[in-house]
């Protein structure tokens, strides 16, 4: 019911969404983050901390299942190099009722932004730079503090 996957492979959006429709699900919510090109990014590279990453994602997903009535919580995160338009991350939640699915979905992506060991590096032409952590992400995550 919890599914966590970190891989350099492209994210199979349709497959992951349909996977959680099994069983007696009433509501499925999803969030997908994609590489944007508007600031001239050619390549976005995701580095992570193997082992610790998966453990962190499972902890986030498990916390969501304790807080909301969920039938599924999926977190798929791509790592390695990717191009504008490609999917970086997908979270999917399934629940009997919509409020649980929607709130848990927002929780998973907010938490993932601050609590999982991923680092983004952007390349524009021959310039590479590490993305700075944003205060707005910390604020978004902290609104879930009970």
């Amino acid at each position, binding site marked *: 019911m919890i599914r966590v996957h970190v891989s350099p492979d492209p994210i199979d959006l349709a497959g992951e969404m349909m996977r959680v429709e099994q069983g007696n699900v009433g509501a499925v919510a999803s969030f997908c983050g994609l590489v944007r090109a508007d600031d001239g990014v050619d390549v976005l590279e995701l580095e992570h901390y193997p082992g610790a990453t998966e453990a962190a994602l499972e902890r986030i997903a498990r916390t969501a299942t304790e807080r909301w009535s969920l039938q599924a919580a999926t977190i798929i995160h791509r790592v390695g190099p990717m191009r504008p338009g490609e999917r970086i991350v997908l979270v999917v939640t399934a629940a009997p009722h919509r409020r649980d699915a929607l709130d848990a979905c927002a929780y998973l992506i907010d938490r993932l932004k601050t609590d*999982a060991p991923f680092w*983004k590096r952007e390349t524009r032409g021959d310039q590479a730079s590490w993305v700075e952590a944003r205060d707005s992400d910390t604020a978004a995550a902290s609104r879930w503090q009970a």
Partner: protein
Amino acid sequence: MTILYFAWVRERIGLAEEALALPDGVASVADLIRWLAARGGGYAEALAEPERLRAAVDQNFVGLDASVVGAREVALFPPVTGG
């Protein structure tokens, strides 16, 4: 003890991972950072501002005041930027 570096910490030090025996007196993550920075070069460049660093001890995310005594694996890295 295995020390792991990620993102620009890794790049500046020029290593993803190394095995080190810590001297007496290196008890916390902050001690470890100070001790490594004193090596100069890429270490000094990567670790000069501890307030910009985050750490994990045996894959648990901790504050810089956390103990490293008896740890098998310590990771040093910038604030995370996934998702």
